[in-house]
């Protein structure tokens, strides 16, 4: 018979106020296998833990049961305690008599009876527990960062500066992301390009960073410490080695100035061969295969002009996709966001009138490198009456976005300020639902903008309509309780942030979960905001949820520190509480393979049986429950152990 020690915790008064702890000790002591049983006010405290260690040695215990709070709280604590005393940590069993007993019951007598039953069932399970040993897996000291916006840039630089190799994959021809589109940043009014481009250049010349732009992650196999990644480099039709970025090809292109520029939100024009913006990194040209006459029709006048003018012979019309494969130990997902599609709110007439524009479009109008050279002009004229509408696509269940986008209140304040600066006699009104100026220096900035003469009217805009060539906005001033309307030369929609649809594929490759807002789900909203439930995969920036630049950079550095923490280990130890296949009983039906959410099951062609990848298995038990031949055993949760536990409470 196994020798078991049982320790009952009072949890201050959390348990002992409802459960008669002495009575539990008395009853449990009667079980023949229980050779030591005691109670203590705080079992998790140092004296409490010492009590357990002493009892293990004095009574030569085989297993220990602690009846206290939830195992999510203190199982790791007590596993370490028994380990210290020389016991295998998997011979420890926890009984939850707080969350599942004292906290949820009022009747002390019944609660005590339930606590006794719960502890008895734990003792039954403890007598069947077996020692388990974790397997060490070596770690590849490299990282993959997906997404080259400010989040991906910061994470990559931090990891690379710690001495580890980083592969940074970006789908666009240049890194920089949305931040590269901004003119100035709130609330300090730093020029976005001035603070971003030096970091972009640092990425390009960092010896530890391999930059893969115009590329997409095709597949990711393996698990924490050993991911195998395959990246597709899309053909640029320009030789990256030969191109000097001089730009004479773009000037010569027959379609120069005739294609809507994605970077300028369609407001500016580019040619078929282009760089997204002048400070692009890498500063190498790309041919748009959807637009280029030669690539589409095989003919461009008598000969393609870009190739004619290129002095380094860099144009490569026969360019093909290339595939790069490498191994990494950790992955950071920094896939950013997509601006809310304003046409989904038809009452704001975004589709109908060119002087209704989104916040991101106005950023390009402000930018000195933008389509109007930084001068705010609408149809060639300076707008004098300007209305900002907040919460467009945010806090709006009609379009499926219940969340607040967190940046719009402040970017509207910034844009209103910039417009007032450029057009001092402009009449600017901000129609807002609630004002959310929560960051450092934000409230002060909001106050400054109001003092500059920007009118903040509480109550969100109901609709925009045009009449006789004029544009009007209708709203209620909710402080007055009166509806009103304003004529406007320019209406700016404070469009929110939505999940990047292109990140969906990445999420599937990595088996990431989404939170109800559609952004990637972190492992814990407060205490593990940069981790995911998949070991070795981390989140940075808006991919995890709307946030501004300071928060994005902070989270990116947080993700980098977790990556470095992981990569600095020679070996990592996976939990041994996983599925094990009995090769003699397995018939190779593959039911488990279809069910496994982590793709941990592989079919062994030679033996005709399944095998489990210990590093991928999370021990969820789906396979064991479904196996028709009962040949999958869950370590630490065997049928015998569970049945013994159940029989005690039935």
């Amino acid at each position, binding site marked *: 018979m196994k020798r078991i020690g049982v320790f009952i915790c009072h949890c201050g008064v959390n348990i002992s106020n409802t459960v008669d702890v002495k009575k539990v000790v008395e009853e449990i002591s009667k079980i023949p296998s229980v050779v030591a049983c005691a109670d203590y006010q705080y079992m998790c405290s140092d004296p409490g833990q010492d009590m357990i260690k002493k009892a293990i040695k004095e009574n030569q215990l085989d297993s220990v049961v602690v009846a206290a709070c939830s195992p999510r709280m203190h199982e790791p604590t007590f596993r370490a305690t028994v380990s210290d005393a020389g016991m295998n940590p998997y011979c420890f069993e926890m009984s939850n008599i707080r969350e599942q007993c004292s906290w949820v019951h009022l009747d002390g007598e019944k609660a005590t009876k339930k606590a006794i039953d719960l502890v008895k069932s734990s003792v039954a399970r403890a007598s069947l527990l077996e020692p388990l040993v974790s397997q060490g897996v070596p770690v590849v000291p490299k990282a993959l960062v997906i997404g080259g916006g400010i989040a991906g840039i910061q994470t990559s630089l931090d990891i690379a500066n710690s001495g580890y190799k980083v592969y940074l994959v970006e789908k666009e021809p240049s890194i920089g992301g949305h931040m590269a589109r901004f003119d100035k940043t709130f609330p300090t009014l730093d020029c976005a390009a001035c603070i971003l481009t030096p970091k972009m250049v640092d990425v390009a010349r960092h010896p530890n960073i391999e930059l893969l732009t115009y590329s997409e992650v095709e597949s990711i196999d393996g698990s924490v410490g050993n991911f195998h990644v395959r990246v597709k480099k899309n053909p640029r039709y320009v030789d990256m080695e030969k191109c000097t970025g001089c730009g004479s090809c773009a000037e010569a292109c027959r379609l120069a100035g005739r294609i809507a520029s994605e970077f300028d939100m369609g407001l500016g024009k580019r040619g078929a061969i282009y760089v997204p913006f002048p400070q692009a990194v890498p500063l190498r040209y790309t041919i748009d295969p959807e637009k280029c006459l030669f690539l589409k029709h095989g003919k461009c006048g008598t000969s393609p002009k870009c190739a004619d003018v290129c002095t380094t012979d860099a144009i490569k019309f026969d360019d093909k996709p290339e595939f790069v494969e490498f191994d990494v130990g950790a992955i950071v997902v920094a896939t950013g966001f997509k601006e809310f599609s304003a046409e989904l709110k038809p009452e704001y007439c975004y589709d109908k009138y060119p002087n209704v524009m989104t916040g991101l479009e106005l950023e390009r109008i402000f930018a000195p490198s933008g389509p109007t050279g930084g001068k705010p002009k609408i149809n060639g004229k300076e707008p004098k009456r300007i209305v900002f509408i907040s919460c467009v696509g945010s806090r709006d269940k009609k379009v499926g976005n219940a969340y607040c986008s967190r940046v719009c209140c402040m970017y509207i304040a910034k844009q209103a300020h910039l417009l007032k600066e450029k057009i001092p006699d402009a009449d600017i009104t901000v129609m807002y639902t609630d004002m959310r100026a929560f960051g450092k220096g934000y409230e002060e900035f909001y106050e400054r903008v109001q003092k500059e003469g920007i009118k903040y009217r509480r*109550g969100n805009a109901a609709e925009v309509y045009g009449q006789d060539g004029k544009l009007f906005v209708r709203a209620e001033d*909710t402080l007055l309780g009166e509806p009103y309307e304003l004529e406007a030369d320019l209406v700016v929609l404070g469009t929110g942030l939505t999940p990047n649809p292109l990140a969906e594929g990445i999420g599937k490759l990595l088996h990431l979960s989404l939170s109800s807002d559609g952004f990637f789900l972190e492992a814990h909203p407060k205490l593990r905001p940069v981790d995911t439930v998949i070991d070795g995969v981390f989140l940075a920036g808006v991919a995890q949820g709307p946030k501004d630049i300071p928060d994005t950079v902070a989270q990116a550095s947080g993700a980098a520190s977790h990556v470095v923490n992981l990569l600095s280990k020679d070996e990592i130890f996976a939990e041994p509480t996983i599925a094990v296949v009995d090769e003699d009983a397995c018939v190779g039906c593959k039911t488990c393979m279809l069910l496994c959410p982590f793709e941990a099951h592989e079919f062994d062609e030679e033996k005709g049986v399944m095998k489990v990848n210990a590093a991928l298995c999370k021990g969820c038990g789906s396979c064991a429950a479904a196996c028709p031949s009962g040949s999958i055993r869950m370590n630490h949760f065997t049928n015998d152990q569970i049945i013994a536990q159940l029989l005690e409470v039935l």
Partner: protein
Amino acid sequence: MGKSVKEILIDGNGYACIQCGRCTGSCPSGRECSLRTRKLIHMARMGMDVIKTEELWDCTTCFTCQERCPKEVKTTDMIIELRNLAVEEGYFPTMSDVPKIIIKSLYDTGAGQPLSPEVSKIRAIIGLKKEAYDVSTNAETLKKFQRLLDGLEITKKGGLR
């Protein structure tokens, strides 16, 4: 028995309202009269006498506010239910005779808005019977219907008899 104001608020998702005012800003009636949809929701939530307000009866139930509400508050549905409650409690608008006229018409003809001669003409043109088939076409049915209305004390509450 109908719903209480609280039940109306719960069923109409009224507690989700963030008082943004898109309802009032969208309201075609509100531009011409004192109806402030947002204010009605606010009054209901604050336990004020919303069913005694005259504005409750100014809504044309065009549903624009409900269509546009970002928090899926069923503003128009709630107004209709608040009116039901108002009638049940004996509060009829004093500023407007329209509800009384409608009830009288309903009692006399079985239709809240009986067919006008113009509509009858159009019906004839498109090949429909001049009279629509409803309770008013059969005297006996109409009598039963009136008994039903009497039982519900609607005419009494409306101050008609």
